């Protein structure tokens, strides 16, 4: 049961989007978010949509997966839409009940907001769908490396991230084992009221934490044995090399952003 958990929702593949330099992908995602939030008319949103669906098509990941990424945020979407609907009072009144007024301006804004957020979720999912967590960590480390000058522990954070990623499957397996062991001793984990179940969770969490600390201790020793001494003077096996296609993709993104800015002014 626990083994089914996927981390980072990465879909391995070999599409052009998969092969882009992860650093460029992060920068492009940021530009993409700016793109969606600068344009405030439907034409700009349309341009954003073209960009989003174009990239999704290129990634060769089924559209279904992207729609699935929107699903957990559905309540959030509904609340946003409802708030906009109720509190944006501009234009003609379409419907009224006591103090709640729905206007065409409000309707317009809420539809606009929903489309914008859906695009935002789908577009950013593209980053995690096409980049493995470990590559992503690596790219973040390199992008943030200038911050080292102001003593920001970039390498340490990236190392923590990658060790966490490395140990997630190990700890999931361990949790599975502990759960079975506790069940064999008569612990009831899946039944009872919410509070009983929460209390019973302690019998899993305590051994899990103890084992995690022991693992951490052993891992630290093993890392020391392999001459680990922080990020100072480290070289890397994984080389991030930017290719012409990365610059092309970036240029396309910048063009789209420029188009959105221009179209936002014109209309």
């Amino acid at each position, binding site marked *: 049961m626990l083994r089914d958990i996927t981390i980072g929702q990465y879909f391995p593949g070999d599409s052009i989007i998969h092969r882009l330099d992860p650093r460029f992908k992060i920068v492009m995602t940021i530009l993409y978010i700016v793109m969606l939030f600068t344009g405030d008319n439907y034409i700009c949103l349309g341009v954003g949509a073209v960009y989003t669906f174009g990239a999704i098509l290129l990634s060769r990941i089924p559209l279904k997966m992207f729609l699935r990424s929107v699903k957990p945020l559905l309540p959030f979407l509904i609340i946003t839409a409802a708030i906009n609907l109720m509190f944006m009072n501009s234009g003609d009144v379409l419907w009224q009940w006591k103090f709640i007024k729905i206007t065409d301006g409000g309707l317009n804004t809420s539809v606009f907001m929903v489309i914008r957020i859906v695009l935002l979720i789908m577009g950013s999912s593209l980053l995690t769908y096409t980049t493995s*967590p*470990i590559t992503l960590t690596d790219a973040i480390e390199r992008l943030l490396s200038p911050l080292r000058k102001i003593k920001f522990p970039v390498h340490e954070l990236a190392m923590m991230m*990658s*060790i966490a*990623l*490395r140990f997630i*499957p*190990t700890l999931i*397996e361990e949790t599975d084992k502990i759960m079975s062991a506790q069940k064999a001793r008569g612990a009831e984990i899946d039944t009872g009221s919410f509070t009983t179940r929460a209390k019973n969770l302690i019998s899993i969490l305590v051994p899990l934490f103890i084992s995690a600390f022991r*693992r951490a201790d*052993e*891992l630290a*020793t*093993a*890392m*020391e*044995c*392999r*001459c*680990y*001494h922080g990020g100072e*003077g*480290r*070289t*890397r*096996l*994984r*080389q991030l090399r930017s290719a012409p296609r990365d610059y092309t993709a970036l240029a396309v993104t910048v063009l789209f952003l420029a188009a959105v800015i221009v179209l936002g002014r014109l209309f």
Partner: protein
Amino acid sequence: MENIIEIKGLHFAYDADDGEKKPVEVLRGIDLDIKKGEFVAVLGHNGCGKSTLAKHLNAILLPTEGTVTVDGIDTKDEDRLFELRQRAGMVFQNPDNQIVSSIVEEDVAFALENLGVPYEEMRRRVDESLKAVGMYDYRLHSPSQLSGGQKQRVAIAGIIAMQPKCIILDEPTAMLDPQGRKEVLATIHRMNREQGITIVLITHYMDEAADCDRVVVMDKGRIVLDNVPEKVFSQVEKLKAIGLDVPQVTELAWELRRAGCDISHEIISEEECVAAIERLFGG
């Protein structure tokens, strides 16, 4: 031959953490020289101090008293710490807790990254090490997809990538299934034979020790026996007294001798045992 490891008058004590001020003595005077290219097994019951001894060989622990020198470097010399750890690599019991990266080849490269080895050379050494342990085809796998024996071989590859002169293995097979044990032992023996790497194998499996050049038996923080496997295992009574077993065939020969048969007491392999018993009946 030249010594690679020299241990002189090594004492080590942990500070007791239960409030008592009296330190707990774990090693009580160890003198041990290991020659270059030797394959040494260190045997002992749980708590005899064999793991503590192993941790002294690459300065994870420092002696309370006495000296440990590895390839001419005193383990107390902080300036040469990384040089020391590069020359004396260490493999631990639990393969899961010594693999750092989520990709096999990156884990093998970890030590080289730390040492600042340039990319081209790193690539070459990583590939060579993976081939040497027979895990090259798995270089892009995640460690969680591998069996225990495969993980342990990856851990060994991570050490040999440093091109050490000596590898210390602290019960590397204790958590593995028989197949995994076989794989790991074959790998260690090959490293010793083909690359001339000195091996210190800490274990409590008697049959693993039987294949070594030399067996050191520890009890209560001291070395009690130190000889070739045949001589060590012939001392069945002494081994039993400190809670160790002897290989099955050795025990059989010993029992036969006690029952009055004329059979050698220096039998450690099945083949020798079969031959000896055939002689017994045939002759």
